[in-house]
């Protein structure tokens, strides 16, 4: 079955899986996991350079920019102003005007501040950014983000790093139904079936970090996620059977021996 390509803001990606670069046991393991995942987009964070210790190797030594599109995030920002400032810095540090926009509203849950998120999206879109906002799994907020010019909406499946899987299946389905821009489930994936479910619900892509980086074997989990996203996408396109309360026999009811 042929699929339509995964296109974000006019750019085509080979994989519907987007992976992070945080919390890996080492940069070498990260590079291996990236290769196993088949992803061609990775997220990075923007932080102050460590002035006193210059010995640390650079993350970018382990990401091939010819193979991977680098998507900076504004993780850790708690106001629209901070997020906008970080996005502008990311644009100067990198090679593109794309940003994964995060405006966090609460430390314990890392849930987004949707009001500030919409405000920051408006500012950045006006400045020519391609904005991919990390948002609550709320269809109305997603619609506002889309109206503000977001290139995609990225509802969470569960809190960042929680590994709980998709908590509100129906909202993700409704967001997909409402949206005219791509929907990427961002955050909350714990294992392969969570990623498959996101894709089965019709998500255009899945973004994850901890599920791979925090697994006991990140490279194996990266490969599992690659297959999970492909399987979920295919299942979505194939069209699942309706759920029924009782059995329907798969084998013929006629011609049974001894009847």
């Amino acid at each position, binding site marked *: 079955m042929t699929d339509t390509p995964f296109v974000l803001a006019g750019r085509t990606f080979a994989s519907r899986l987007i992976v992070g670069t945080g919390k890996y046991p080492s940069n070498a393991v990260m590079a291996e996991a990236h290769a196993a995942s088949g992803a061609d987009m990775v997220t990075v*964070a923007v932080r102050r350079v460590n002035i006193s210790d210059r010995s640390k190797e650079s993350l970018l030594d382990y990401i091939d920019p010819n193979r991977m599109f680098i998507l900076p995030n504004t*993780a850790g920002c708690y106001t629209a102003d901070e997020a906008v400032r970080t996005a502008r810095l990311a644009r100067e540090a990198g090679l593109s005007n794309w940003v994964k926009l995060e405006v966090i509203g609460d430390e314990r849950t890392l849930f987004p501040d949707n009001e500030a998120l919409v405000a920051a999206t408006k500012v950045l879109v006006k400045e020519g950014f391609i904005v991919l906002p990390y948002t609550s799994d709320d269809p109305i907020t997603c619609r506002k983000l889309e109206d503000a010019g977001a290139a995609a909406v990225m509802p969470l499946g569960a809190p960042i790093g929680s590994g709980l899987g998709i908590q509100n299946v129906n909202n993700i389905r409704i967001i997909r139904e409402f949206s005219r821009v791509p929907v990427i489930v961002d955050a909350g994936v714990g294992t392969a079936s969570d990623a498959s479910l996101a894709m089965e619900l019709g998500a255009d892509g899945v973004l994850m970090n901890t599920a791979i980086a925090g697994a006991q074997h990140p490279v194996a989990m990266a490969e599992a996620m690659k297959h999970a996203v492909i399987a979920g996408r295919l299942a979505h396109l194939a069209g699942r059977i309706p759920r029924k309360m009782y059995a329907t026999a798969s084998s013929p009811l006629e011609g049974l021996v001894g009847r």
Partner: protein
Amino acid sequence: MIITLNGERFEIDRPMTVTDLLARLDIDPRRVAIEHNLAILKRQKFPDVVVREGDTVEIVNFVGGG
């Protein structure tokens, strides 16, 4: 003379360009973004902009994240 560099007091012996400051810090200018007194600098401006007493400089780069 003292500047504020990434939120910390930092001593430089003379006013210097951003390019010179990065060289002194052993930082590859191609991999960072810089804010000078809250204004973001284009990379082409690094050789022209001079950091002076009391200035605030932020140097950021990409690190692992999700």
